[in-house]
């Protein structure tokens, strides 16, 4: 994994973006999970492209993950920068976390220089969050954090008040 500083990671997450490949209108069932994907392009001159994935387990809909993956233009490896997760079970924040105190909360994984330096998965460390308490709220939180432009946000990811989430098999 190439070196990324925490500042670079934060900048990549929050650089303004637009939708370059729109998500499907509805989540689609693939195996045991509902899913959707989109591509996001930076609008501030940042090089590279971003992928957004949305996954939600069919048997346990409270298990979901909405992620942001960065693909640099220079051909180096992709890096998962962010994942907004549901209460899918337990997680251990890795080295330094208390293994006797697993959590069962909505939580956010974020890439960090510390994890990369240690040779861990970049987004190994996670923090519980109160920013969202459902899949729909997590999507709204995500598009705010990744600075998706308001027009695309309301067009492709209308909030609950704008539209009901639809599911298609």
């Amino acid at each position, binding site marked *: 994994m190439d070196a990324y500083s925490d500042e670079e990671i934060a900048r990549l997450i929050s650089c303004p973006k637009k939708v370059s*490949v729109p998500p499907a209108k509805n989540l689609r069932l*693939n*195996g*045991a*999970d509902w*899913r959707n994907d989109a*591509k996001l392009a930076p609008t501030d001159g940042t*090089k*590279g*492209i971003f*992928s957004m*994935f949305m*996954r939600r*387990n*069919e*048997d*346990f809909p409270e*298990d979901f*993950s909405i*992620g942001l*993956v960065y*693909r640099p*233009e*220079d*051909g180096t*490896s*992709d890096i*998962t920068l962010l*994942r907004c*997760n549901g209460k*899918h*079970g*337990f*997680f*251990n*924040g*890795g080295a330094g*976390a208390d*293994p006797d105190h*697993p959590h*069962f909360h909505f939580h956010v*994984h974020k890439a960090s220089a510390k994890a990369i330096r240690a040779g*861990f*998965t970049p*987004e*190994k*460390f*996670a923090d519980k969050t109160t920013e969202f308490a459902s899949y729909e709220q997590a999507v709204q939180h995500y598009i705010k954090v990744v600075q998706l432009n308001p027009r695309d946000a309301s067009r492709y990811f209308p909030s609950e008040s704008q539209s009901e989430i639809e599911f298609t098999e």
Partner: protein
Amino acid sequence: MDIRDLLRAEFDRHVDFRERRPGILQVVAPLYHEDGDMVDVFLDLPKHEGEAIRISDHGMTLMRLSYSYEIDSATKRRILDRILAENGVSEDRGRFYLEATPEHLYPALLQFAQTVAKVSNMQMFKREVVQNLFYETLNDFVASKLSLYKPEPHYMPIPDRDDLDVDWRFPLPSRDIYLYGVRDTSKARLVGLECLEYQKLSIPFRSVIIHEDLENGLGKKDQRRITNIADKQFATLPDFLSVAEGYFAREAETARQHPVM
């Protein structure tokens, strides 16, 4: 305390169960994925006496894997099926499971968790082996399905330039087809330079480029460059594999009808 007693006590202390749905228990054990999330293992309790306990992941393994790696080719599917088969794990619509009697539950649980870890590790293929998988799949396909067009690997159109070689040459009456597999920027640029060199020397050929993932694998400038140079491109390997035989049949027919162009 004896180390063995300590370990036994520790094993016991770190295993718990949480009811996720009526009749479905989640196993809470210190089994973690690389990102810190716990490995998802559930026990579907039997509805009737005498039935086996189903150890299942309820689809979480493939869902997690899809964050960074998709099972989207026959080769990947074969590898996944092999991992499952070799570990005695079955699959039902994306859900892995293993059935066990109560007396065999413990070893079955460990076996299942190991299988989940092995499948999860398929994401390593993306970084370290996928290059070989891409070229291997393409080469296998060319050597088998397109063999009637007599493909020649590593063909050198300019004999004294051994630094320039075509992945596969298909000799046709009018002009050859030069086929290249491209999965990254450096190969794309090399192929572009080669094709320009052949064009400069008026070598009659038609270039066909098969990308691993044109849209996501190359930057915009490289996409533009290779698009301007190539005669025909396929955006992904599955795109090529699905139409290649028909495409080559049409090219061969055109070459037969118009032997000199």
